[in-house]
């Protein structure tokens, strides 16, 4: 088991990067070099120095501190999004895939309709109705993610429901709910894990995109997307700002992407 894990280089590197990012995010909750929102007018757009390892932004806030706390926000939003998507997607996918028939057709066509919309546009609609903010962004993105998970899980349940061991579970007198969630669900974990990893990436990007547009996480909360959009104006004066923030996003996504690919390969 351990050997196999080390051998699968993608999985290994992905796990290491993700582990470091998660650690940094957790550390950012308890400790940052400076208060992420404290402004120091004398250090406006300060360059990289020992005092400010990644420099300061246009308000004189320490970028490293803001990245550390922003990482937490971004991850929290992404995790919440994935959780909502997977939870409801699995339930919908389980019932439609297992029972099939007309409800399946209706729900899946509705799914197709939702998928056909550009997701950012739909998120914009949600936000303009519910108002901006961390929680609303999470809910909006989570709802948007439900259809794609539902479709993947539906496929898995469809595949599993005619297998012999499901048939023998039915023969033991197990109820449909028990068959779905006790017998079939554990068999979908592999697919579920890699879609979760991909979904996490999409959620990070979507959150960054929405914050970039100014409808995501609201100031003074820091988030990676928000910081990137702020860094844009100073791209030529202080390129370090954009590079550091961008690198954080890239690493976060790279870690999860490699993790998901590694998981798929391990199958």
């Amino acid at each position, binding site marked *: 088991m351990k050997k196999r894990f080390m051998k699968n280089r993608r999985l290994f590197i992905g796990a290491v990067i993700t582990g470091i990012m998660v650690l940094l995010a957790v550390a950012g909750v308890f400790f940052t070099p400076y208060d992420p929102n404290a402004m120091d007018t004398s250090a406006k757009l300060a360059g990289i120095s020992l005092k400010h390892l990644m420099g300061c932004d246009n308000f004189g806030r320490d970028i490293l501190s803001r990245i550390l706390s922003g990482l937490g926000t971004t991850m929290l939003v992404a995790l919440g999004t994935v959780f909502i998507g997977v939870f409801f997607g699995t339930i919908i996918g389980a019932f439609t895939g297992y029972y099939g028939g007309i409800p399946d057709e209706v729900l899946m066509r509705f799914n197709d309709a939702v998928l056909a919309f550009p997701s950012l546009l739909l998120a914009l609609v949600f936000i303009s109705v519910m108002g901006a903010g961390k929680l609303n962004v999470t809910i909006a993105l989570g709802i948007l993610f439900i259809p794609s998970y539902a479709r993947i899980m539906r496929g898995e349940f469809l595949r599993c429901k005619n297998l*012999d061991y499901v*048939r023998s579970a039915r023969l033991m007198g*197990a109820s449909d709910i028990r068959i779905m969630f006790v017998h079939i669900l554990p068999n979908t974990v592999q697919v579920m894990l890699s879609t979760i990893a991909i979904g996490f990436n999409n959620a990070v990007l979507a959150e960054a995109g929405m914050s970039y547009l100014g409808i995501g996480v609201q100031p003074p909360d820091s988030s990676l997307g928000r910081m990137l959009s702020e860094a844009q104006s100073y791209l030529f004066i202080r390129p370090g700002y954009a590079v550091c923030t961008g690198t954080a996003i890239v690493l976060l996504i790279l870690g999860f992407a490699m993790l998901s690919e590694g998981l798929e390969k391990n199958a």
Partner: protein
Amino acid sequence: MLDVIDLNIEFHDHLTPETVVYDFDLHLDEGEIVGIVGESGSGKSMSALAIAGLLSRKHMKKRGQILFDGVDLLTCSRNVLRKYQGNDICMVFQEPMTSLNPVKRIGWQVGESLRIHTSLSEEQIKEKVLKILKDVELDDPEGVYDKYPHELSGGMRQRVMIAAALVCDPKILIADEPTTALDVTVQAQIIRLLKRINKKTGTAILFISHDLSVVRKLCGRVLVMYQGRIVESGDVNEVFDSPKEDYTKRLISAIPKMEKLKYEQ
């Protein structure tokens, strides 16, 4: 105990309905071993699946009656049917490689029927599972209990399947070609095991096979099926020694025999 009367099975998932079993009749008493033989596609597995209640109610039309202790399994509600499944009627499939859930431990899977049908505590279930694993003559019940299906050989898995089927002391065990996927020595062991279980617990066995010699060794009565109909039935020795129907004669003459070859030379 089990009476199947005039069972007809029709497929309705295509444009034209197709009948695969005609006027199937069967009577099974407690402790009896009845064999069903016939070539592939003769409807023997279909009849068995119908008795086990595994055929879709939507896509397959069934006429006739399957009476188990007086209750018609074809028309009773799903909940009533579920009460019998696993508790009174059990089935062992042909393919031991795919019949076990790959992500669950053996002990859990064997105990599943108990968990569904009884209110025993986890310790009591474990005790019973270990006992039944021992009864099906697995060498190391405690070791097998914590293993996953991929760690077992085909013969061991088939034993586990039989254990899972028998854990609730069912009245009927339907064995759908349980030995086809196994090699000959393991086949013989499984047959002996079935016979012993039948004697010990009085579980009636409906044994489906196209291996005539196995049927002759194991069963008391036999039904011969051909193209969805029962063409001949009766005592196993009578049917095999003096077959009346043309199809049965041809089926029996298809068994390769050493003596016959020598005789011809």
